[in-house]
């Protein structure tokens, strides 16, 4: 298990991470989401042992990087956001160079290079110069490099950004396969659809602190429960609004196009009760459903950049215009 406890990191007077705490269980596919400048890359670099926190600690199975840095590094494969290349190296040389840096030499190194290049479908590019590869291929090569010492943990910073849809799909397939093999994978990404498709767990970070974390399904449910109920009427919309304003369970009402958005506090049983009362009152309800939460809407709400707040601008207590 990876534990991040109260990590603080300052760059001069700027606080990049402010008491960041996380728990990432073994085998999980963890999505790390946050706006630009939220501290994701700093957090990732601290987790990989590239930089140390000013306060707090990061442990993998209770081991801190300070305890045994080499052993700590052996457990992590890192794919950075900026793909680091040596222009004068060929693909196979690049792999063999990093294999040597990770203690593999000679035949062992060549064999591993061949295996990994085949895995990421770059065998036919082994003799190409790295700089001649497309972005997608470079990203695959970065993944192959990160797997050289077969680490149990894979940390990827923005791995799918700038990739074409096909390469993104292939990359996600590979990540899914690696997760199925039991690797713990941490992905930071701005592409929230990728995170919601791939990840089992998530942490949303803003201004250096975690604003929400947990199982993706639980987070989605939690936010979905706070979403408005969308009621579409086949007619008598004004009567429906009047009826809803008199209902005690309705907190606020907003109108978006032909839909009535109801901010409703209650259980699913209460929701059913509200629908029954509307129908019993002879109001023609065409559809009645809780607005589904997307990772994007959660992200926007939690990081304070949401427009969803404005949807609920018509308060039930205000006079009807």
């Amino acid at each position: 298990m990876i534990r991040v406890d109260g990590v603080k990191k300052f760059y001069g007077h700027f606080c990049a991470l402010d008491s960041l705490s996380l728990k990432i269980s073994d085998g999980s596919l963890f999505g790390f989401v946050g706006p630009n400048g939220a501290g994701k890359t700093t957090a990732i670099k601290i987790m990989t042992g590239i930089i140390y926190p000013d306060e707090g600690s990061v442990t993998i199975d209770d081991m801190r990087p300070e305890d045994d840095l080499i052993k700590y590094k052996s457990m992590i494969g890192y794919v950075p956001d900026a793909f680091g290349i040596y222009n004068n190296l060929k693909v196979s040389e690049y792999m063999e160079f990093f294999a040597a840096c990770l203690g593999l030499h000679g035949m062992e190194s060549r064999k591993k290079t061949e295996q990994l290049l085949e895995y990421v479908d770059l065998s036919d590019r082994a003799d190409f110069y790295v700089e001649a590869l497309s972005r997608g291929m470079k990203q695959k090569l970065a993944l192959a490099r990160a797997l050289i010492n077969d680490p149990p943990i894979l940390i990827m910073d923005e791995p799918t950004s700038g990739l074409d849809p096909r390469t993104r799909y292939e990359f996600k397939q590979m990540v899914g396969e690696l997760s199925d093999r039991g690797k713990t994978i941490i992905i930071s990404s701005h592409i929230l659809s990728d995170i919601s498709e791939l990840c089992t767990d998530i942490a949303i970070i803003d201004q250096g602190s975690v604003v929400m974390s947990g199982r993706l399904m639980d987070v989605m449910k939690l936010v979905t429960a706070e979403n408005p109920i969308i009621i579409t009427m086949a007619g008598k919309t004004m009567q429906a609004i009047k009826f809803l304003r008199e209902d005690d369970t309705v907190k606020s009402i907003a109108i978006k196009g032909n839909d009535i958005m109801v901010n409703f506090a209650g259980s699913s049983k209460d929701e059913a009760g509200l629908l029954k009362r509307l129908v019993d009152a002879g109001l023609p309800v065409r559809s009645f459903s809780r607005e589904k939460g997307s990772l994007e809407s959660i992200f926007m709400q939690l990081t304070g950049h949401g427009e969803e707040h404005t949807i609920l601008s018509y308060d039930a207590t205000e006079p009807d215009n």
Partner: protein
Amino acid sequence: MMIIGLNTLLFIVSLLGSFGIVNGMEQSSEAMYGRFLRIYELTAFCEYILILLITPLFTASSISGERETGTLDLLMTTYLTPANIIIEKITAAFLSISAAVMSGLPALLIPLMFGGVSIAGVIGLLVSFLPGVFLVLAVSIFASTACRSVTKSIAVSYAALIMMTAGFLVLPVFTRIFSSPGENRFAYILALDPLLPAASMLFSQAGEARNIRLLFDFLKFDPDTAFLNHAALISIILQIAEGVGFAILAVLNITPSRSGSKRILF
């Protein structure tokens, strides 16, 4: 490759100079060994200056360049320690420059066709360049760890090189104005100048060892005879120690630590 090209140029200049002297000797029937020694001194001095000018390029961008391309982070996630990275970069650069230094041998041997200094003496002189090279490499790699961009690290390395060569000479020249004869102790700083061992050895080979004494006399300082006799050795030891010190600082500068924000960074 650049230094080998420059050494070739130096070889041609040395060759033409030597033939010029031989031509003069044929016409005057006078043996002018002193002129051969002047050519030897000039060639050796130019060789060393060229080496020193080129040396910062080998390490000044080594860490800042890796930082710019994002490969430093990758190296830091491998089993290489910061000390491994710095030592291996300095060693690779040192070996390349040593080969370049030795490629200057033919240019220095031409004036010696007519006698004077032995081949072992010339090789000894070239070896005396190496402590200065090591110091410049170490200072440059430290600048490379301390600067965020390649341009800055190269500029800082050359500023440091000027400081170490010209600066260490200018400072005692400046302080001599305020010193009584024989009292300008700032002249000891010359021992840190990478030019001193080479200059000392070169003067000694040309039979002009007293030139070092004259230099100190000019700086209004009367050092111990032991210091004067071993100026080259003392300077070499100091430069190696200084180089090791800068290499250690470079290692510390890229070592992750909880006080990372206190690193030297420009």
